[in-house]
């Protein structure tokens, strides 16, 4: 999908997620007190309300929780069809990421497929995409 992805307004909460890919890291906010993950990222842990929340590089592996094959070109430069999926991260319980499954035909994707992260960079944002783990 060669289209121009949405450009994100970076702030103190989301910067680690959207730029971690520069170092190959998928960063999810993790609590230093209870170990719980908070996504979308914010200042307070949503489980125990601690402020000891910092970006944590997860393994980058997960499974497809569900997906859809999108056929509609919502923007003029969008090449269709492509897969939108919700990925459940292996080591971040309760966290889902919306993403695209790439590097395979759109009809080769199924629920429960094991996937791993890769990053596509555009204008200083590293977008986490996923491909099937072999």
């Amino acid at each position, binding site marked *: 999908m060669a289209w121009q992805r949405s*450009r994100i*307004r970076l702030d103190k909460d989301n910067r680690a997620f959207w730029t971690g890919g520069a170092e190959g890291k998928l960063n999810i906010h993790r609590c230093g007190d209870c170990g719980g993950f908070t996504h979308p990222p914010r200042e307070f842990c949503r489980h125990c309300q601690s402020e000891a929340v910092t970006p944590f590089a997860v393994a980058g592996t997960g499974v497809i929780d569900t997906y*859809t*094959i*999108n056929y509609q070109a*919502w923007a003029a430069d969008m090449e269709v069809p492509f897969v*939108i999926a919700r990925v459940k991260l292996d080591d971040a319980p309760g966290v889902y990421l*919306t993403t695209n499954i790439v590097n395979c035909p759109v009809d080769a994707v199924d629920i429960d497929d094991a996937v791993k992260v890769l990053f596509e960079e555009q204008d200083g944002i590293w*977008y986490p995409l996923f491909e099937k783990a072999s």
Partner: protein
Amino acid sequence: MAREAYISGIGMSEVGVRLTRSAMGLTMDAIRAAVADAGLTLAQIDGVSTYPGKMQTFLGFSPISADDVIESCGLKTRWHSGAAEATAQLGAIADAAAAVRSGYARHVICFRTVYEAAALARPDEYPPLERRKDVTGNSQWVSPFGAFSAACWTAQFAMRHMKRYGLTREQLAMVAINDHANAARNPQAIVKVPLSLDTYMAARMISSPFCLYDCDRFTDASTVVIVSAGDALDEVRATPIRIAASAGSVERYSWDQAEWASAYATGRDLWKNTDYRAKDVDTVQFYDGFAFQPITWLEGLGFCDVGEGGRFIEGGSRIALDGELPMNTGGGQLGWGRLHGFGFAYESVVQLRGQGGARQIAGEPRLAVATSGGGPMAAALLLARD
């Protein structure tokens, strides 16, 4: 004795696409109709309720605020609400019911004005929602991956239902086919002709499993419901419909973090403050911005077990006008138009009053459920003709 809340009047503007009537014009048309229907005057209105209020970043979606109505109608309100952070569309009616039961107001104008088709045609006046640059808030987690539309978000829940419970496209088709058949009997609806299964199965796909007919389309309209206190009914001339119970929830505002559709939590909660049960319900008006949503409401409210919604509507006979549980008797959002939730309260009142004309269900219905929301936002009203 506890004060009850009633719907005392309903009104709707012209419903169409690319209307030239202004958004405030459509709103006033609906307000005038509802106030006249109730037998009230604007001087008796002391409350206003709406969802989500005026959205400056997305005016076509919601161009009219509670204050626009208060100012335009010269109202002196004792209670009002026009919040975006609430249990979504029918939540505005549930909140008005809570207000009148508490004695905050006697007669509340509840409205929902939508102007997305006109906005698309007039982008200088109504700039579209920015999805490509400087994206922040919850949009940032979905827009970069091409998931611009709620069609993509909802479709994923539907795909999971297909995998877990065996829902088929032929079953899902019954929502749109039932909607179009009923809309063809409704002079206010945009859709005028029935839909066949062949046409549905051959239609272009939007986001699997949704095809063109599974998705509602931009509509221009305003729908108004007047909520009145039980001790103010002597001022009302129409048959009042009691808001017997209500419920609403938002699981997560970031839709993709939600475990499941909030129709399940809200569907359970609706029965907690009433002795009525699902078996007592005569007709259901279920949110169908996307065809999968009524399936979650059938399951969430307990009309069938979780996972059985597709099989419940298979063939379409159970939910038809002459079926055991007539659904979306006015055409729903897929057939009537994307009225954004309020149409379900409106049609419930029409059916309970026996005013459905060519689409009126038989047997003098006394109890209806109206729902709204989508994904992790949900609200439900139990409406009774005593």
